């Protein structure tokens, strides 16, 4: 039990620690019951050849070797995913924050607008994917039709390797309603007296934004950033429903390739190896984000050691 770096000295501190454990116990119990078993099982599976219908057969590190050294599609899937993440995450954050600022106004009917912007998040992912398939259709879709009316000859979108990923990134921006809501909740939590005080000091809107809003919502920004990272590294549904990894492997994302190995090619062990390498990558990135966050995230609870 890793007590070494923190030893509660006082009675109160010990009591605090005990209650801390008590409050997080639901998660701990659930973790032990439902989560740790499958996690360990999937690690073990990564060292086997598992064809789903027949029992797994141990093969040592061969899955990892093949992944890292012999499979031409693996680095491609990683590249495709990183490409997607680099654009989708920052753009998503900016767009959702702008939307949240936009709907944070106290004008009449703002609730209606908030609902409209959240519409995409209310429909199921599969339905949205099918809808956008049609929207992006080069000959018969709405997007190229509208572009045509403005005099632009629309690209092949999901049929052209160059445009397939941008198409999916655009689609993801349309679905930032969730992050918008979280930002909105964060904006609502900024105490108004801070704005009043800064106005007394003569701050304009940009200064207010930079020195009051941003710091006060920084915990929420961190959340959206980390969740955005974790989520977009696992981008799957759109590629699965709309392109199946095509055209010419342009949208062969990491988890799609993983899924294909797991369920279509009957190579679950190989897929498990992929899963754990992804885990390591995302973990390292997240830890980096968290470490770095102490420089820019402001928490009201100055928990030194908290």
């Amino acid at each position, binding site marked *: 039990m890793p007590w070494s770096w923190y030893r509660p000295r006082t009675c109160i501190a010990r009591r605090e620690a005990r209650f801390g454990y008590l409050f997080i116990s639901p998660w701990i119990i659930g973790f032990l019951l439902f989560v740790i078993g499958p996690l360990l099982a999937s690690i073990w599976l990564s060292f086997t050849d598992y*064809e*789903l*219908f*027949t029992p797994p057969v141990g093969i040592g590190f061969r899955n990892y070797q093949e992944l890292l050294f012999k499979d031409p599609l693996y680095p491609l899937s990683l590249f495709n995913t990183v490409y997607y993440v680099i654009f989708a995450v920052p753009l998503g954050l900016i767009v959702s924050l702008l939307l949240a600022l936009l709907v944070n106004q106290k004008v009449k009917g703002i609730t209606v607008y908030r609902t409209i912007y959240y519409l995409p998040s209310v429909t199921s992912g599969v339905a949205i994917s*099918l809808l956008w*398939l*049609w929207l*992006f*259709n*080069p*000959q*018969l*879709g709405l997007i190229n039709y509208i572009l*045509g009316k403005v005099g632009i*000859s629309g690209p*092949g*979108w*999901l*049929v*052209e*390797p160059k445009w397939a990923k941008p198409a999916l990134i655009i689609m993801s921006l349309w679905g930032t309603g969730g992050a918008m809501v979280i930002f909105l909740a964060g904006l609502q939590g900024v105490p108004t007296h801070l704005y009043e005080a800064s106005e007394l000091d003569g701050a304009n809107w940009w200064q207010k934004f930079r020195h009051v809003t941003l710091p006060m919502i920084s915990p929420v920004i961190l959340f959206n950033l980390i969740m955005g990272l974790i989520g977009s590294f696992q981008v799957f549904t759109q590629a699965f*429903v*709309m*392109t*199946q*990894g*095509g*055209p*010419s*492997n*342009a949208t062969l994302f990491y988890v799609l390739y993983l899924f*294909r190995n797991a*369920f*279509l*090619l*009957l190579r*679950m062990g190989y897929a498990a190896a992929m899963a754990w390498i992804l885990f390591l990558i995302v973990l390292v990135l997240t830890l980096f984000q968290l470490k770095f966050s102490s420089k820019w995230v402001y928490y009201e609870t100055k928990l030194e050691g908290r």
Partner: protein
Amino acid sequence: MKLLIRIITIIFAVILLFSMQAMAKVTTITIWAPHDFDVRYGPEYNKILWGPFEKENPDIKIRWVRVPEWEQKFRIAAAAGTLPDIFAVDGINVPAYAARGLLESLDRFIPAEVINDYVKGCYDEMVWEGKCYAVGLETNTQFVIYNPDLLAKAGLPGPPRYWEELVDFGKKLTIDTDGDGKIDQWAYIVYVGRGEYQMWLQTPYIWQNGGEVVDEKFNKALCNQPKAVEALQFVSDLFNKYKIAPKPGDILAGPVWPVVATGKFAIEHIGTFAILPVQKSYPEFKFKVAPHPWPRAGKRITGCGGWHFSLWTGSKSKEEAAKVMNYLTSPYIIQVLGDSYGIPMRKSLMGQFERMKYHPWDVVLDQLNYTKPRPRHPQYPYITDAIQEAFDRTVYGGVPAQEAMNEAARKIDLALAKK
């Protein structure tokens, strides 16, 4: 005293009756399928499909479960060992599942003359290595569906019969109708690339040209041989060189399909399953069908494929499930499914379907004689993945056909070497 004895006797009789009822056990046979029986047959689907059987066999009840997103649910359940007694199988997966011990061999339950009575394309998928592992649910073949008005407007005598004619006719049918410099009408459309539907459509091109995907004994991939590479090149040229076909904007049988009904496409390479829905959903659309073109120097070959019912080796009620399997081969079921999905699956019952004598079904029946199934091998998932990728890269990514097929052959050889 006599009254007491009478009461006791009555009570005994009632108890006996109840226990006899309880002893008459009812076995429930569960069937999983992704097919939309509930939509096609309406809320009474249970009565329509299973009524006759349940009447004849009151001790067996059939419970059908609709499973959308089939692959995932089926494979998870299979991995955990919790499959239903009977489940639907895509014909191409029969070797893969049978080799891994999922499918019960049906030869001891169903008479040989019934199995042999199934139409060619269906039979090819039901049987593997001499044993029958599945009975047909629905089966399909391919053809081109075309818009006769557009062809007449272009002054063409009829649909193209050969690849060479397809290119010639195609050039006349791909036109800019409103003079804005953009093509508004396309000659041909066929879905190629990623997806099993695409695989189903694109493999006949290889075979028609005299090529093969793998050799007969499944020792080696032959897709990188000249004839197969030529076929891939031809398909790619339709999109990229002759430009008589646009690259489809979606992958699965999705939004705009069959596109030929929109009036912007003249000819579409498609399967039997489209006929009935198109007739129902586009009643104004007058279409015709014809065999899809093959090279003059090649052979007329088309694809076959569909779904079947299989019996799970782990079923706890095999005898009862076998009875259900037999029922699924009965004339009644063949009639019901045939009316709904198109092709009557048993040759001896073809006469019950008047419509098979008329267009477009006469063409379909004819095509059935030229069908060839996709490679029947337990490693088919790798074979299809490799070929799909080759077509995807060449058609959409501009990779040279030979290079793409070389990579596909490499992958297939690796997979074949495993077993």
